[in-house]
């Protein structure tokens, strides 16, 4: 069997995009989650929300479209699709907290087998703590997915029994997309839905702290 080749970030974003059906209202966190939008086919009507007051966000502008007064939550210039709406922060987080966002995709440091999320602070003292809208999104969206590398750069698992970093929210994550696998978070814990070609259950478990359950059928992740 050939060595398993992890997905790159674009492939991870593309994989997430495949699971977003037409009609959903979607909020994307900064980093890889933001790239998800680029992989949703143009003919699939998905409406992107940005917590700084935009519904119906379009892609990055061409130089002609550029408006310095229109940025997304990552402070990057964006465009508006026809049908877009603008509003203030209290209304925007009413949408989030009130359960009106179908999906939020976030990056993470760690996800626990209970669905607990840690994605805002590594608690080291050399960084400024900053939470942004992550805690609100994690508790408010109808479903919250994480996209992240399966392990840290030095090989430490990010799918854990209990988060070691400060929590963002309890039990909020229902699905994780990594560079190695797609994993659902169910009442029994992590359930592997897909693995990259060449990956074995044992090799994946070696990179995962918490116990992995295999779904009835595990698909090939690509």
């Amino acid at each position, binding site marked *: 069997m050939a060595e398993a080749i992890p997905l790159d970030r674009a492939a991870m974003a593309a994989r997430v995009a495949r699971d977003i059906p037409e009609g959903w209202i979607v909020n994307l966190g900064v980093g890889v989650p933001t790239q998800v939008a680029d992989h949703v086919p143009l003919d699939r009507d998905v409406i992107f929300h940005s917590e700084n007051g935009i519904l119906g966000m379009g892609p990055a502008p061409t130089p002609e479209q550029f408006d310095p007064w229109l940025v997304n939550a990552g402070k990057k210039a964006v465009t508006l699709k026809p049908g*877009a709406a603008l509003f203030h922060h209290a209304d925007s987080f*009413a949408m989030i907290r009130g359960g009106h966002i179908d999906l939020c995709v976030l990056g993470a440091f760690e996800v626990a087998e209970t669905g607990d999320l840690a994605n805002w602070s590594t608690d080291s003292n050399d960084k400024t703590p900053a939470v942004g809208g992550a805690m609100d999104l994690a508790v408010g969206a109808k479903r919250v997915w994480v996209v992240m590398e399966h392990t840290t750069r030095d090989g430490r698992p990010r799918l854990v029994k209990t988060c070691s970093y400060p929590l963002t929210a309890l039990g909020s994550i229902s699905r994780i997309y990594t560079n190695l696998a797609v994993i659902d978070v169910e009442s029994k814990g992590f359930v592997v839905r897909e693995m990259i070609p060449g990956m074995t259950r044992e090799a994946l478990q070696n990179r995962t702290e918490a116990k992995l359950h295999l779904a009835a059928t595990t698909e090939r992740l690509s």
Partner: protein
Amino acid sequence: MIDKRCHVAEALKDVSDGATVMIGGFGAVGQPDFLIDGLVEQGARDLVVVANNAGWSRETGIPRLFDLGRVRKIVCSFPKNSPAFDDLFRVGKIELEIVPQGTLAERIRAAGAGVPAFFTATGVGTQMAAGKEVREFGGKTYLMEEALHADLALVEAWCGDRWGNLSYRGSGRNFNPIMAMAARLTVAQVHETVDLGGIAPDEVVTPGLFVNHVVDINGVARHG
């Protein structure tokens, strides 16, 4: 393609008996009478209606629901000038929960905003405080009020598009935008359907994510 435009019968087909139904409007302005007539046709009974008034003219709207015996209870700030309501209320055939208008608005907004409860000075020391938690903040006394959710919101807007974006006319906003946020199913009647972008991004009052169905009361046949 997202297309929330539909016929009233389709929009209301899943309303259950016993549903809590928010109905927009203040006086005669912003009342979704076309949708209420649709609800009459649909047949749901034993409804709890949440509305500022107990209807306005007798022939249509909320009073028609009353006259047909479809309403078990109304949650309301100002049920005056509604003979249909009076007739039922005087003989004990309808339940009334009076809520101060601002508390009613904030409880509805809270439901839409994911806030289960909040504190307000309104009603402190009055009958409205009965059974409610009282608490001091900064030396002043407040009551705790809980969010008011609904199964269905019927709202009236002026323009709508296929994503469910809405704009209003005159004093027609009133309870409509907040009720649209607070229900599991929101149906809007509009006087005009416009293309996406026909309501400018700055002028959308109710963004489409709060709306499930848009019923054009003039041009229902327009879409297909």
